[in-house]
């Protein structure tokens, strides 16, 4: 009994910390995206709320919270109110299996637990892939239930795009799975420890850098970011699948998009860039303090990927729909498949 209570308390506090950090990062991202984008376009970005506009996320949140919540006439009310939740929950739930720091076992009141990962599932990668696919349902349902042509078009585009690019994400990950021999994100990271030459993006026998590029492009498409933001193309579909949404429901879609960005960055870090591992063994704090540098390196890598998202958004225009499909099926899919074949041959020879 006592053990159950302690374990529950530990897990709940872990979840609270992870969720708090993720939601704070989302708030920070909404500001940083606008700021970085402005700097790259010789603008200033938000400057009015607080010094240099740093309180803009608070103002945005308050505004969205107190806005009128409109359900359009003719909308399917149940689906309409369920869709934002169906998008947001899978985006947040994926963080359960991400290891943020060293995979140590700590004993608290006679209970063994890992402090830096909420739940070390042995099928972590599959879990994340499954839940990001459920997020696509939310987008499609939100687009369909709004009873608007723009929303429906956005939802349909999202469906086609997510199916095409989900495949590439899965195939890009297969190479890493072949090398590590595990689906658990903790085990995958443990296989890459000891400097950047052990990270799967650069490691012998066959560096997974090509797979990483495929994964990055496909994950940008999966999070509906520019240049693959066809489901919410402003110049064509008003706002795409969330055209009819306002207030908190709109905020849920917004949160989900940014949470998905963080999740994808975390997965890329863990799978290809060694998770909490320092690039050089010297850059790691010795002994019990290793978790500080571990979390620091993890955050730095994730921050770099998030910056890369902004950078790509500032640079590239949106793809046309047929270009998107051609790129997904005719370019990325053969590359990913070829990578799987070569990686399995290499793994068979050298392991």
């Amino acid at each position: 009994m006592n053990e159950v209570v302690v374990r529950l308390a530990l897990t709940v506090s872990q979840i609270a910390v992870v969720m708090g950090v993720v939601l704070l990062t989302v708030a920070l991202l909404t500001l940083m995206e606008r700021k970085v984008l402005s700097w790259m376009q010789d603008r200033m970005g938000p400057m009015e709320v607080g010094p240099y506009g740093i309180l803009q996320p608070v103002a945005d949140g308050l505004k969205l919270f107190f806005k009128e919540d409109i359900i359009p006439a003719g909308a399917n009310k149940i689906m309409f109110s369920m869709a934002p939740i169906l998008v947001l929950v899978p985006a947040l739930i994926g963080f359960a299996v991400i290891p943020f720091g060293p995979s140590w076992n700590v004993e608290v009141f006679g209970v063994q637990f890992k402090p830096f990962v909420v739940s070390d599932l042995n099928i972590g990668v599959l879990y994340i892939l499954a839940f990001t696919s459920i997020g696509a349902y939310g987008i499609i349902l939100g687009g369909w239930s709004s009873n608007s042509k723009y929303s429906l078009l956005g939802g349909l585009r999202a469906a086609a795009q997510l199916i095409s690019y989900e495949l590439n994400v899965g195939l890009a990950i297969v190479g890493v799975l072949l090398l590590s021999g595990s689906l658990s994100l903790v085990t995958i990271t443990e296989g890459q420890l000891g400097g950047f030459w052990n990270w799967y993006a650069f490691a012998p026998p066959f560096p997974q850098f090509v797979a990483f590029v495929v994964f990055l492009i496909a994950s940008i498409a999966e999070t509906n970011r520019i240049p693959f933001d066809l489901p919410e193309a402003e110049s064509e579909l008003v706002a795409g699948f969330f055209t009819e949404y306002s207030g908190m429901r709109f905020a849920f879609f917004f949160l989900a998009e940014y949470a998905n960005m963080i999740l994808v960055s975390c997965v890329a870090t863990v799978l290809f860039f060694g998770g909490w591992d320092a690039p050089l063994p010297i850059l790691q704090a010795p002994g019990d303090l290793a978790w500080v540098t571990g979390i620091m390196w993890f955050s730095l890598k994730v921050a770099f990927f998030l910056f890369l998202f902004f950078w790509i958004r500032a640079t590239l225009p949106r793809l046309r729909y047929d270009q998107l499909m051609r790129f997904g099926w005719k370019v990325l899919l053969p590359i990913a498949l070829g990578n799987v074949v070569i990686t399995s041959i290499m793994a068979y020879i050298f392991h």
Partner: protein
Amino acid sequence: MKIKAWFRTLIFYEILVGMKQTMKHLLKYRPITLEYPHVKKPLPSNYRGMLALLRYDDDTEKCVGCDLCEAACPSRVIRVVSAEVPGEPTKRYAKEFYMDMTRCLFCGMCVQACPVDALAMTQEFEWAVSNKRDLDLNKEQLLAIGDRAFPVKEKRLEFQHPNVAYFNVSFKDIPEKEF
């Protein structure tokens, strides 16, 4: 040459060039933004902003109520009700003077038409109101705009050509003409 183009496609050369360009702008951060309500762009001196009625330096109105501005206005902004100056039957003034600024297109033809330079265009343009009828300005409002936009006023001449004096309003202490 074909191999080179193929290689460039392979490493996303064009995209990398574009990304280098955006990074250059991020590192050399020189914003061209003017933070408008705090920093204002200097306007050209011939800027055609809000219309105003003017006064002479002794605070008498310049307008003689001749209706020429009303005639010149292409979009019927101005409405003048002319009247005699009380007690001085030879002189007229604008008893009422209305400008419906919702219709004004700021062409400046009323200013050109005015024979006594009683109308002028100021540099004001921040005239957003929540009630549209607030833009139907009367004589007092237009005079107030003129007062705050042109603090230095034209000197009223003591002795003017009789014709000009005929146009002039509110000459309280005009010397009697000597015949």
